[in-house]
């Protein structure tokens, strides 16, 4: 006897299903956002808020169209210190965005350390999907970035996470953002996405968010990126 196909039989006199509640595997999606004082320049923080607000419906569409995973969003802001903007894993359909303000330094290392704690906690469930992480910054880390990145990479899921970064403006340290993206994948982007105007920022965050979510929920260990990088990300004049 054997097989590899099954039809749905009628529910006649079958016992109650063994086991407990069923549900989709959680896909933990993290937005890690720079809210340092330089984000007040040229309307960057307003553009970032608008970009996040615009990307949420696209994440909801990904969740609706792909039944393999339930996308749970958390948002971590960093400036002088870090704070969870959305602290609990929240279904994307339940997220209501409240605009962020900008002030202070750029504690990106602390952000990655805090992220590492959250990522490690996910691994207690051995079935965990790889986390999806998008890091957005316009500047230079003002704390120990190397330590934070090391802590993230040492977690059980850190190097399995699907990670992309978006650099805002010319002052962004693209080298550290590239190091954040590097999880050892052969096809990992060599450089972060760059946004030099509000429209580019929206497109970059939108593509990055959808790409990491799809890759984390459906990508196998040998897959190329499921969503090719669009070619229009750099269209428009540079204002940052």
């Amino acid at each position, binding site marked *: 006897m054997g097989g*590899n*196909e*099954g039809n749905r039989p009628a529910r006649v006199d*079958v016992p109650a*299903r*063994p086991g407990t509640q069923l549900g989709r595997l959680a896909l933990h999606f993290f937005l890690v956002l720079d809210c340092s004082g330089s984000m007040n320049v040229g309307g960057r923080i307003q553009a970032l808020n608008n970009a996040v607000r615009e990307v949420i419906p696209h994440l909801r569409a990904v969740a609706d169209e792909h039944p393999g995973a339930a996308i749970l969003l958390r948002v971590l802001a960093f400036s002088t210190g870090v704070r969870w903007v959305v602290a609990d894993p929240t279904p994307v359909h339940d997220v209501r965005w409240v605009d962020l303000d900008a002030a202070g330094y750029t504690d990106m290392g602390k952000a990655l350390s805090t992220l590492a704690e959250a990522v490690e906690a996910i691994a207690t469930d051995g079935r965990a999907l790889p986390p999806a992480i998008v890091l957005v910054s316009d500047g230079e880390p003002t704390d120990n970035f190397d330590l934070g990145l090391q802590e993230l990479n040492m977690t059980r899921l850190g190097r*399995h996470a699907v990670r992309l970064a978006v650099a805002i403006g010319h002052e962004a340290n693209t080298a550290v953002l590239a190091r954040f993206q590097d999880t050892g994948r052969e096809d990992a982007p060599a450089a972060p996405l760059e946004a030099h105007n509000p429209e580019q920022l929206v497109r970059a965050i939108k593509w990055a968010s959808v790409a990491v979510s799809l890759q984390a929920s459906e990508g*196998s*260990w040998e897959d190329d990126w499921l969503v090719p990088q669009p070619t229009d990300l750099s269209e428009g004049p540079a204002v940052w």
Partner: protein
Amino acid sequence: MVTRTEAEWGAFGASVTGAAHEQSGLPNQDAFTIRRHRDGIVAAVADGHGGSRFVRSQLGARFAVEVAARTGTAALESDTAPPDASALTTQVVDGWRDRVAGHVAAHPLTASEVAAVGDRAASAPQERLAYGTTLLMVVVTRRYGLLVQIGDGDIVIAHADGSVTTPVPDDGRNIASHTTSLCMDDTERHFRSAVLTGGGWPADVVLLATDGYGNAFVDPLWREQTMRDYLRLFTTRNTSSVEAGLPVWLADSAAAGGDDTTVVLLHRLSLGVDERQECGGGDG
């Protein structure tokens, strides 16, 4: 009245296409088989890899369970108690590779399949990569239970006293959608096994499942309650009702979790209501 020994086993299985595959038009990439022998039962499940590179993983899974069945049956014929797990693993791996090679020779990868598979991966030649699959198999007799596995998925054991165990060691590499595979060059190194004899055997219920089953439970500690529920069913309901229920339950799992879902259940016949009635015992 038919006389049955306490250690005799029954077995049945089911497989349901995941909601994600139904939505995308992909086939069920799982497979299972059950082979009965005068001395025991061989059972196997396999999960062909998803992802665009694994263009023939449905076939790879089918080949895997067929080779496992043939190899396990040969082990029962040899009357070695129990078979050497390492030797059996080698036979399974060689048999699967031969089967894949023969299929490729008869049905070469098309140009589009070659493009999808891409260049040789670091861990597997292109032809075998296309057929990549996990494999979980058991050989059970009155004297021993041999459990063998590569990749993700679950082999869970339950005893009538309510104890639930997973004797096959974990593999920490099977995490975050990564899994070891039959298609890997050094696949034999990645097999895990357990041999149960003496006080630890026989178990009363054995469950083999592809990862779609366990992944659909919200609770990461799903095994204990689930196996106790199966024990209760086997001791209070006719086996036929449990067998009829399995595809219904798996359909719920496949819908909730999205993945292809396959389960084989082996159960000691002495547990069953119908068995106890037949032998003149139990409450019926």
